[in-house]
């Protein structure tokens, strides 16, 4: 995938994992195999390689083994063993995450939920779907489209990414400007806690008594337990969807048009922006027939026909007033698909113009866009590293693509440094280090730039309530390891070594 680390100091070059035989007692292996069956346990080195990273490929750790449970009961049994033996675990969906959230942890196991892929219930009158974590995002929509419903969160990887992974990352997508994020659409969860206990958070009916722990679990990046069932809200398809494509001289005019649209009191379903470099790459890759210009704006409005037509006329006028040279409005599904094609292919298209690239994910208050853009441009020139920009412009979510050539000495380091600086710019502008890709392994260090020590310690309290032994994806999100309660020795030491476990996996 050609991506690189933001934080080279914690990359594997400096800290190679113990690729030697980390080991687990034969008795435990047998016990785990008895739980998932012989086909549910992977231990051979060549098969394990598939699981040593997610879509952020520059971090790699070999897991001790991979378990493929098929039921909630099996997940519970596995976690009871892990808890008893103090074996850390990492849950994994389709492995499309971009922050290393599903990166295995040293001396731990990976629990892949791909075999738990059934849609358990479709309740159209109440607009609810109950799904297992391994169900692919787009399959939810596939099952309800015939009745004119859809599942709104639409991360770019939606044809392969899993609902369980979406829950872990609180995935967004282009349309969350209007429809919200995964957390908006998750009403309840069945969760296996790290000690094997089964709990139900939230429910099909709203406002279940007690703390909103479903709201806390979504986006916790696998650090609080494993979701085994997810109650989702689905949405009726709008009467119509119109998509406008406008070409501007630069991102400044395009950004001004976005501001005008918001100021006019509109809430489009999506507002996307691409700069010249991103447009050229997309053209080279998929020939979306985009105009060659300084910035493209893609505005999608949906809803009742009369309302959409009225608002679209207004958007058109706004774009003209901000010097748009060319405006196209797609009304049919085919026209829409073509307009979106280039945008959706934008990340992968970078391969056409650069051998390597880093996908960054930062958020700024939308009004800071011109200032942040010129800052990125300045840094890019200074570093001699090109940056292509793709934005979810409506909500200020930037995806700068930092382009480099690994073969040229020093380029990777320069690209990584620039990518990290972009996050600092986002924080300084009052934004966030991640809008939808998560912190994972990749941005742990940036967490301390965005949050103070008391902020992080307070979040840690939540983790200690769910997972006092810190076995669930223990090394992610937080910059420094922390302990819960007053039993430090037990966890700090290598649990498996401490137990004197013999080689086996």
């Amino acid at each position, binding site marked *: 995938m050609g991506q690189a680390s933001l934080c080279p100091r914690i990359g594997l070059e400096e800290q190679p994992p113990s690729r030697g035989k980390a080991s687990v007692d034969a008795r435990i292996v047998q016990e785990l195999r008895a739980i998932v069956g012989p086909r549910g346990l992977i231990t051979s080195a060549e098969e394990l390689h598939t699981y040593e990273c997610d879509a952020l490929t520059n971090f790699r750790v070999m897991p001790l083994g991979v378990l493929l449970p098929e039921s909630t009961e099996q997940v519970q049994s596995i976690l009871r063993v892990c808890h008893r033996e103090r074996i850390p675990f990492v849950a994994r969906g389709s492995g499309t995450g971009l922050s290393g959230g599903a990166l295995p942890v040293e001396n731990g196991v990976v629990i892949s939920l791909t075999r738990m892929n059934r849609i358990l219930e479709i*309740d159209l*009158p*109440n607009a*609810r779907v109950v799904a297992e974590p391994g169900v692919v995002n787009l399959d939810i929509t596939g099952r309800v489209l015939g009745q*004119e419903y859809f599942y709104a969160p639409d991360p770019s990887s939606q044809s392969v990414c899993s609902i369980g992974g979406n829950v872990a990352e609180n995935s967004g997508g282009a349309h*969350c400007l209007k429809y*919200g*994020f995964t*957390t908006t659409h998750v009403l309840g969860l069945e969760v296996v806690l790290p000690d094997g206990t089964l*709990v139900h*958070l939230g*429910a*099909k*009916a*709203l*406002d*279940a*008594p*007690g*703390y*909103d*722990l479903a*709201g*806390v679990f979504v986006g*916790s990046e696998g650090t609080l337990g494993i979701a085994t069932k997810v109650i989702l809200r689905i949405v*009726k*398809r*709008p009467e119509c969807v119109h998509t406008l494509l406008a070409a501007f001289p630069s991102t400044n005019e395009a950004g001004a048009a976005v*501001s005008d649209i918001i100021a006019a*009191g509109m*809430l489009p379903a999506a507002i996307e922006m691409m700069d010249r470099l991103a447009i050229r790459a997309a053209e080279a890759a998929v020939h979306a027939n985009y105009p060659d210009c300084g910035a493209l704006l893609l505005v999608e409005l949906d*809803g009742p026909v*009369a*309302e959409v*037509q*009225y*608002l679209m006329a207004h958007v058109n006028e706004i774009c003209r007033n901000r010097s748009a040279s060319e405006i196209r409005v797609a009304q049919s599904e085919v026209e829409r698909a073509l307009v979106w094609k280039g945008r959706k292919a934008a990340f992968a298209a970078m391969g056409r113009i650069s051998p390597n690239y880093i996908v960054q994910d930062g*958020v700024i*208050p939308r*009004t800071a866009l011109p200032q942040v853009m010129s800052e990125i441009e300045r840094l890019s020139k200074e570093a001699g590293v090109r940056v292509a920009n793709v934005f979810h412009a409506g*909500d*200020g979510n930037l995806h700068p693509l930092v382009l480099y050539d690994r073969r040229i000495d020093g380029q990777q380091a320069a690209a990584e440094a620039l990518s990290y600086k972009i996050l600092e710019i986002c924080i300084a502008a*009052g*934004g*966030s*280090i*991640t*809008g*939808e890709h998560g*912190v994972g392994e990749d941005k742990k260090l940036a*967490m301390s730039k965005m*949050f*103070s020590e*008391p*902020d992080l310690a*307070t*979040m840690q309290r*939540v*983790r200690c*309530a769910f997972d006092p032994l810190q076995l669930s994806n223990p090394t992610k999100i937080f910059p420094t390891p922390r302990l819960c309660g007053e039993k430090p020795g037990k966890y700090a030491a290598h649990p498996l070594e401490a137990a004197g476990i013999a080689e086996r996996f």
Partner: protein
Amino acid sequence: MDAGLFSGAVPGIAAFESSARAIVGPEHIHPAREISESAKATDNSGGADFSLYPWIRASDENAIPPKLRVEPANEQELARILKLANESGLAVIPCGGGTKLAWGNPGQRADIILSTARLGAIVDYACSDLTVTVEAGCTVKQLRDTLSQLGQRLALDPLWPSRATVGGVVSANDSGVLRLRFGSLRDLIIGVTLALPDGTLAKSGGKVVKNVAGYDLPKLVTGALGTLGVITRATFRIHPMPKQSRTISCLAQDVREAQRLVLAIQDSKLAHSALQIRFVQSMQPQIDVLFEASEAGLSAQIEQLKTILAPAAVIDPGPAVWNARQELYSTAKDKTSNSALAKISVLPTHIAESYAALATIASNRVHFQAVVQATGIGFVYFEATPAELASALQSLRARLEAQGGSLMIAHRPSAMPPLDAWGHPGDALPLMRAVKKQFDPKNTLNPGRFVGGI
């Protein structure tokens, strides 16, 4: 030296008072009792409830009412006061406008009312970014007035806006009819600063709508009834004010028909902002639909709606019908001795069935009225003797819980037999207790008022 307002009355309180004076100044510490008199005298909102004592006494004749009300000037002072109370072993009741102090169970202990009255600032209104950061004590009305000047709003219609504060509304998770389209507080709150009992001031979330860095503590404290920490400020996403709005109502033949129509509207492609059914005992239910759009969008949608509702005749009753929920609450508060108010939650397809259960349970001994939103959230006003109220509430809760719903008692007469305000919290209760223990290990904040004795 002043001997203090309550020196010697409760162990630790004299020392607390003297230290608290040094933090906030003596003029910002009052006897807790004063709050009810002064507030009642000035309250014209029709909803505020400063009668603290009924809920303190409800479960225990010997319970000690709160002694002091402390009004810190800023979040640092608030955190220091909270820490001081925590170290002194005193129970703290965080308080904004005091409109919902009767919600939840009677407190096990109550020593200090920690008021956010002086934390009322609108800290950062980023109108072009559609976000606003406010201090917890800012009233909903004040926020609303500020936003409306620039044609924007917090898309939330909580109870008693002129009195209710942002912190209180978040803690009580109080949302109204706009929830159907814009979600509830959990969907609008994007950042929060919390004061914890150990004096920590921690922020979570941020000032941008899209943000997945770290755990979502804004959601954790939404609806936590102040049992985990005191919210000192919050950031919300805001929405543009609609260009036009129109309400359309019609009568349904009966409850089944009302449910059928609501589900049909939900299954249509209309983009309505609110949808509710009003029930008055032994009368035809009334359905209200709120549209917010451009003039062109409005007329087209109203025509479509008429087709769905046909043959029922539609009327435009004006926006007052959207006060139905608050009217039920306010009526319950006015008739304190023989009324109760419950918030219920059911699946939309269970509305008719739940109503039938309610009618049977009430029979002719209990008078009731209800308003149920298309989300399945409803509000039921009961009028009967305290014993009959308890029995009706309990029976209805059992019926709702059996089909996956819930019933929360927001108001009840002090003479009513003890009945848990929340109902069954499910198998996550031990986890909720673990969370509480992490945030408030000494059980300082609102002890006993939340689910399962938290």
